[in-house]
């Protein structure tokens, strides 16, 4: 029957036709415009468990943009922030890069919170060619890339390699028996920090006596902590977020083990004091910027603006202060680079990065960046700060009774 022969199209004939047609159709990709728009893109966790991080980055950026625009903007144009959600998922981050660069045609973009996402973005940022300024995610490999070819990615934030050295220094210098242990979360961030800490220890001629990991939402860390206790560590480095940090402290309490020194990466800079209570007292936490305690004039000024715009009562209300400060400085550096470049041309702006000197919240950037992979990170270790939890407040170490 003739109608049944309609089934014939689905035979291999048409399939081979399609294949031939497809592979012989080659159209060149359109090149992107030379002049970009005065928007700053950002891929941030707007939703999900890390929403507080995305929020912080957006806050810092928006305050900075408002200040810049109030003074007339950049090259006569007003800046705007285009923040897209990546919910901590690498593919979304990768898509956001393209959206920002090709669809919105922004002049540059800010990096986000999750190291895993930024790592995924590297290839795309290089492919597309857009200046990227990280604001939080600290994994060393984001900036110091394995192929040594990083041309577009910069960072105004902590570098985990340096953070590790900083924390190791803090731990070892305080340790009496030089037995140091590391507790790290089983995520991109934690797994990235681990080799950095190991390397930093090795540089001091030491080894970690215990290396334990845990998952997000874990409730009880006693098995890991028993091993740490048995290894005899008197100093512990913690690479975790507040929630797990609290479980660690309580776990220690349960097994009657309290190391003399606990130093932590900035994951414990949120509400550890609130949830762990007295157990948090004396825990030292790394930050790039501390909003509590005495602020300098610039900090005071920005704090007032934060208070007004986001309804914050005290600096304790800030969930991730380092992120706000990093992002603020990042936007200013970017704005100055655009001014210096004289046009909204991505390559020119990128080249201008190396010529920016800027007196920021976190540091005196002199210059912000240099032409080595290592120095695509703007914040040098000398500007790293140490804070301590005391009676529910996270204060600069000097303003607490701890040493």
């Amino acid at each position, binding site marked *: 029957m003739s109608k049944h022969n309609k089934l014939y199209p689905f035979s291999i004939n048409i399939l081979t036709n399609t294949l031939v047609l497809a592979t012989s159709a080659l159209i060149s990709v359109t090149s992107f415009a030379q002049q970009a728009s005065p928007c700053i893109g950002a891929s941030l966790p707007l939703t999900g468990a890390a929403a507080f991080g995305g929020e912080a980055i957006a806050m810092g950026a928006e305050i900075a943009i408002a200040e810049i625009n109030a003074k007339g903007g950049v090259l006569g144009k007003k800046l705007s922030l285009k923040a897209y959600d990546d919910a901590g998922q690498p593919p979304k981050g990768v898509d956001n890069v393209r959206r920002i660069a090709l669809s919105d045609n922004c002049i540059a973009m800010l990096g986000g919170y999750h190291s895993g996402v930024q790592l995924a973005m590297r290839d795309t940022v290089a492919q597309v060619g857009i200046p990227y300024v990280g604001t939080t995610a600290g994994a060393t490999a984001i900036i110091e890339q394995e192929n040594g070819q990083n041309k577009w990615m910069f960072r105004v934030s902590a570098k985990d390699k340096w953070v590790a050295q900083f924390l190791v220094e803090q731990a070892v210098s305080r340790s009496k028996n030089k037995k140091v242990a590391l507790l790290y979360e089983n995520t991109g961030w934690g797994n990235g920090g681990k080799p950095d800490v190991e390397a930093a220890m090795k540089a001091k001629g030491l080894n970690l006596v215990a290396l334990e990991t845990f998952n997000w939402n874990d409730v009880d860390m006693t098995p890991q902590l028993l091993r740490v206790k048995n290894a005899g560590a008197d100093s512990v480095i913690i690479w975790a977020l507040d929630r797990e940090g609290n479980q660690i402290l309580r776990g220690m309490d349960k097994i009657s083990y309290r190391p003399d020194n606990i130093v932590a990466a900035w994951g414990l800079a949120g509400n550890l004091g609130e*949830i762990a209570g007295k157990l948090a007292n004396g825990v030292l936490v790394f930050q790039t910027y501390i909003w509590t305690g005495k602020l300098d004039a610039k900090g005071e000024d920005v704090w007032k603006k934060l208070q007004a715009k986001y309804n914050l009562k005290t600096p304790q209300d800030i969930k991730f202060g380092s992120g706000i400060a990093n992002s603020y400085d990042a936007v200013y550096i970017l704005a100055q680079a655009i001014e210096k470049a004289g046009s909204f041309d991505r390559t020119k702006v990128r080249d201008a990065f190396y010529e920016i000197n800027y007196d920021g919240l976190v540091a005196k950037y002199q210059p912000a960046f240099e032409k080595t992979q290592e120095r695509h990170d703007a914040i040098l270790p000398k500007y790293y700060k140490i804070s301590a939890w005391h009676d529910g407040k996270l204060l600069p170490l000097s303003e607490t009774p701890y040493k």
Partner: protein
Amino acid sequence: MSSIVQYFLSGISIGAIYSLIGLGFSIMWSASRAVNFAYGDVVMLGAVLTVIFVGYGIPLIISMPIAVFVCIVYGVLIERFAVAPFTKEVTGIGWMLSTIGIGIMLESFVTISFGSFAKPLVTPLIEKPIIILGAGIYPQELLIPIFAVTFLFCLELFYQKTLIGRAIKAVAYNQMAAGLMGINVKLMTAISFGIAAALGGGIGILIAPIVQASATMGLLLGLKGFAIAIIAGITNARGVVIMGLVYGIMEKFIEGFISSSAREAIGFSVIILLLFIFPQGIFGKKEMVKV
């Protein structure tokens, strides 16, 4: 030796959480062969509401029952509007997706209003740990398995001795026959879901001091609790409670002797394996089909 005791103690604490959540699923399933797939979010709701009320200065003693009450209302509404319309379908996709969808909405709403940060619920029971044979555990943590066994006991009494309880059991055995006997099946199902929701809210309040209240606290717990209920044989309440405790202890021993990171991979593989061997659950009953 004290390590073993530690694994065991921590294990029954976390295991009791699984037991209770599994029990909630069991109560729902027995009533209508369908559950609120996002039951973990009911747990979250109980915890979050209590923290909010306490934050407003309402004493804990009063905050708790109010939170539980809201959970009951939430649970009954879910049953009426998101589960009941779909129970006639064979695949179960209807109520699975509807309850998941509502769970997503609740979770994101809580994230936006409550914040993504975990907030504490302070009770005197987490101030100092008790030391047993060299291992430490907070009284709050010990409270959970005690509560689990007590609740199970009360639940069984309820099913056996009260009229409503027996009516619910009848609905669980044979909905149509129960209806024909004059039992208001819809009401019994709604009550069951209400009980499960009350339990869920209670679990949230119980664990909030230990786990901290956050929008995402219920997700993995809910999944695990459901899986455990199923491998135990979801209609067998005692089996579910036992299975939860066993699973919790197993998790701790895996962490103790193998590694913490392997915990989920091994744990869920065990779940799959057990379901291969016991498709109706270990303590479950095989159902015969008549033609």
